[in-house]
């Protein structure tokens, strides 16, 4: 996936092949990557492989609500993972839910990364007033509790997948900015940048052709972790009643919806989406973990 493709650009420092073989040294990480690939495929292909379109109110029937796993509903097919309170097939719900969770997670991570990295690089490269202005903005952002900020942004924008993405981007860009600035500050004083400056290359070229590639490793690590964080944040927001609309539930909303039924023994509404969420986040984190080990030169023997 994207995490294996991007390092190709940084072959200046680490040849791609060496990166792959180092990554593959951990069987767990390879397994996690495989699991993540499968999850991503399920999410992408959901409309073609799910037994039901769980967002189409016309095919839902509350008379099929809360059926046990394995029961056959009014639609004539087996609900392998049961149904929720609206008669929504849980298997389909989870497939579509994965789609939303991944869309929110990956989408917000990419946008936040782009925004944060750009600002962080500018801060590091320009220094002085620009740097301190941007970094105060970062402080401002980081000094504000993510959940509260997201809560207020969503209360203002209203529910919706796009709005959740916007909220998460606003909340998370600062992490990237700080990370990039940190490593860019180190890189800035390296000889190759000095050399580039001596050649009087335009700032833009130095920034994006020379500085950025060398700040990528920490960025990739942070980015991977932030995807997982974004997915969890979205789940929590949905639990608090904001987040995505109830008719198009993400994994977090499915869990929140089903939890009320947990005490009364209808575990499947909350349990299976919980497992799906867990597996997704764990897989992403495991991949990110190995990436960090591989990309951190200080850990190399």
């Amino acid at each position, binding site marked *: 996936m994207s995490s294996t493709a991007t390092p190709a650009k940084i072959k200046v420092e680490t040849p791609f092949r060496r990166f792959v073989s180092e990554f593959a040294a951990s069987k767990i990480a390879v397994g996690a990557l495989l699991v993540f690939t499968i999850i991503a495929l399920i999410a992408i292909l959901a409309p073609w492989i799910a037994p039901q379109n769980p967002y189409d109110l016309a095919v839902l029937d509350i008379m099929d609500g809360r059926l046990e796993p394995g029961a056959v509903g009014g639609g004539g097919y087996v609900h392998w993972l049961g149904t929720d309170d609206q008669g929504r097939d849980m298997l389909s719900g989870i497939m579509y839910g994965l789609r939303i969770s991944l869309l929110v997670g990956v989408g917000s991570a990419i946008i936040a990364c782009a925004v944060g990295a750009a600002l962080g690089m500018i801060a590091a490269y320009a220094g002085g007033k620009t740097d301190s202005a941007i970094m105060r903005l970062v402080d401002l952002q980081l000094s504000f509790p993510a*959940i509260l900020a997201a809560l207020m942004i969503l209360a203002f924008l209203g529910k919706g997948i796009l709005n959740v993405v916007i909220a998460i981007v606003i909340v998370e860009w600062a992490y990237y900015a700080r990370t990039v600035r940190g490593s860019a500050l180190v890189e800035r004083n390296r000889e190759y940048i000095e050399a580039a400056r001596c050649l009087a290359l335009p700032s833009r070229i130095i920034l994006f052709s020379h500085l950025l590639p060398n700040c990528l490793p920490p960025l990739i690590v942070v980015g991977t972790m932030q995807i997982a964080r974004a997915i969890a944040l979205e789940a929590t927001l949905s639990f608090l009643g904001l987040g995505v609309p109830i008719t198009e539930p993400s994994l977090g909303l499915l869990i929140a919806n089903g939890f009320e039924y947990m005490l009364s023994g209808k575990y499947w509404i909350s349990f299976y989406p919980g497992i799906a969420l*867990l597996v997704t986040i764990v897989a992403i984190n495991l991949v990110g973990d190995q990436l960090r080990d591989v990309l951190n030169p200080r850990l190399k023997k």
Partner: protein
Amino acid sequence: MALYLLRRIMQSGFVLVAMSLLVFIGVYAVGDPIEILISPDADQEEKERAIRALGLDLPLWQQYLVFVSRALQGDLGRSFVFNEPAIQLILQRMPATLELAFGSMIIAIIIGLPLGLYAGLRPDTWGSKTIMAGSILGFSLPTFWVGLMLIMIFAVQLGWLPSTGRGDTAVLFGIPWSFLTIDGLSHILMPAFNLALFKISLVIRLTRAGVRETMLMDYVKFARAKGLSPTRVTFVHVFKNILIPVVTVLGLELGGTIAFSVVTETVFAWPGMGKLIIDSINVLDRPVIVAYLLMIVVMFIVINLIVDIVYTLLDPRVRLESKGT
């Protein structure tokens, strides 16, 4: 150092003003408190009286100016709902939250540090791999879900711990605390653990990473070569070095913990600031929301400052640098 501090404080002041403006506008944009607070059978006359009583008839900029001029005198407004000074309401709830946050930090250190050390020193054992896998779970599990699971298992199924609330308190310095009574301790255990979950993983990973990096350092290699006992190497040379990132991150996390205890406090009905803010958001009690958010900002600023200072004291290299500039 003094100059550096002064500059930081001035920057912080600017941050505070910017935040107050943002928060004020943000809170203003969300909903209409009168619609929430007023009885549904109240007539227009009563509605208009309430709007005037709460000062909502003024334009936004005037409301903000009133707020700022009062804030400068130490008054952050009165709660619409409780008719008490917002700051007083928050301070009343603060000990409960602080207690919970510190409890969770202690739990994180007690559990996280030894596990992290072990995983760092013996990275290839089966135990270490389990610990690391477990730490990923700690990062991945959503807090609300774990909280409810804990209640289900330990309070409902096993009946070992009380499910919610704060339990008996004992008074120290005129403030009621739960950790001074057995009943209070039994109440705080689950929410503190729930809140600690993320930090346990964090401490494990920081410790492990620190240990692994330090073990490769020349001075540790040298100490070992000198024939020092592994225990001494671990606890004197390695431990000292890894404490810096752990202290920094936990310090930064304290603010986050206090702010994010919202979810844990909601699940465990813990009467702290987090629960107050959620309740206040639900009824659009603007003065309390604004006061709470501003206090959080102040807290973060102070914590960042303290962490910076502690960091300087712990790491001589940083001290030298800041003296140089």
